[in-house]
């Protein structure tokens, strides 16, 4: 095979690999099958496709080692929460950046939306109270970030889950505060009245 033909073959192969990666990222099985048909005539293309699949799995944390690491991380987070940095106070509204960070931790960001996701990570905008899809779309339009429907659906689901978690911890936090207040109040009841009410002299001043 001449140099020109080799170069042509290499370019055709590059295009096919690009088409396969795009198909994988968009979940386009028809386009992926088309490339596999081309690989039937090109063993080197098949080798590259196998490399691409391996890289995709590694990137998504889907190799056995990455999955084990994630499992350990989740177990530690569930059973030893003090090992992790203290979370935002429960009163603070959930922000777009916090939801984006959780999506990343849960590996739910489609790679085609990496760029949009990166922009959201730094956003401190609070989320709307009512997390309907139209409300999320309006928020996206306000921020000026374009991402796939799949991404926004995952974003909304995660925001709702985080919101529920936060309400739960807020309720626990409020209950603990209530208990503390009651305990403090009962301790105060043992003190002389003059300690908590102004004296006649203080009132005159």
């Amino acid at each position: 095979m001449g140099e020109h033909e080799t170069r042509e073959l290499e370019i055709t192969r590059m295009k096919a690999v690009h088409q396969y990666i795009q198909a994988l990222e968009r979940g386009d099985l028809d386009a992926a099958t088309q490339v596999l048909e081309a690989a039937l005539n090109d063993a080197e293309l098949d080798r590259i496709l196998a490399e691409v699949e391996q890289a995709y799995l590694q990137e998504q944390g889907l190799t056995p080692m990455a999955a084990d690491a994630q499992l350990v991380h989740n177990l530690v987070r569930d059973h030893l929460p003090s090992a992790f940095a203290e979370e935002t106070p429960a009163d603070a509204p959930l922000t777009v950046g916090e939801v984006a960070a959780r999506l990343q931790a849960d590996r739910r960001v489609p790679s085609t939306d990496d760029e949009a996701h990166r922009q959201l990570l730094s956003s401190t905008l609070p989320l709307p109270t009512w997390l309907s899809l139209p409300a999320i779309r309006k928020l996206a339009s306000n921020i000026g970030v374009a991402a796939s429907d799949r991404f926004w659906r995952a974003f909304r689901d995660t925001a709702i889950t985080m919101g529920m978690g936060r309400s739960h911890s807020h309720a626990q936090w409020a209950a603990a505060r209530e208990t503390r207040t009651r305990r403090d109040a009962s301790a105060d009841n043992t003190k002389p009245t003059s300690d908590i009410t102004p004296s006649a002299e203080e009132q005159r001043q």
Partner: protein
Amino acid sequence: MSEISEHDSFVVDADITPQRQQLDAAFEQQRDLLLNGIKAHLWSQGLTRDYTTLTELAEEVLQETAETAYRIADQYDPARPARPWLLAIALNHVRNLRRAHDRDERHLVPVAETPQARAAYRNADGPLSDDTLFDLLVSPVTSSEVDDRFAVEALLTLVRDDDRRVLQMKFVDNISYRELAAALGVSEGAAYTRISRAISRLRTAYMQRITFGQED
């Protein structure tokens, strides 16, 4: 895998054709590669978000693929690599799983994810299709025209620094993917992925530029 062992015993009893021999070898030697390909596509379809379920689903699909492959073995050309043929069969099973999943979940498929929309995307040439963009990017190497090199350099100013760097290395410096992978400290597959995404972003940036004008 038990299902494949059953096939093996079946194959011993039947006439062992070159097709079946080749398929036996492929299932034995390329099982992990096949599983990787199946897992990647299952994940890409969003059928599960859990690694254990993904592994189980991939094993199921591989078993179904083996059944189909042995049934239609006479259609396989043993002179060709077996993996792409088997993976194409596996993708049919993944497609069926996706349909069943959509039915069960009464899932509403967004317009952008319908097969029609995907086909339209693939076939859309527009002012700059992926193929045209590739031809343009490889032109300094194929034509050695100075103007082509300038055109590519100008085009690359549209993308962010990290994308420009990898595109320059590949298309201006004309290094191989293996060398690119070594330079980036990633696998060869990851290097292909980096280039593919950089090209996609370049195309988007170019389309935005011609849609919204130079001042954008």
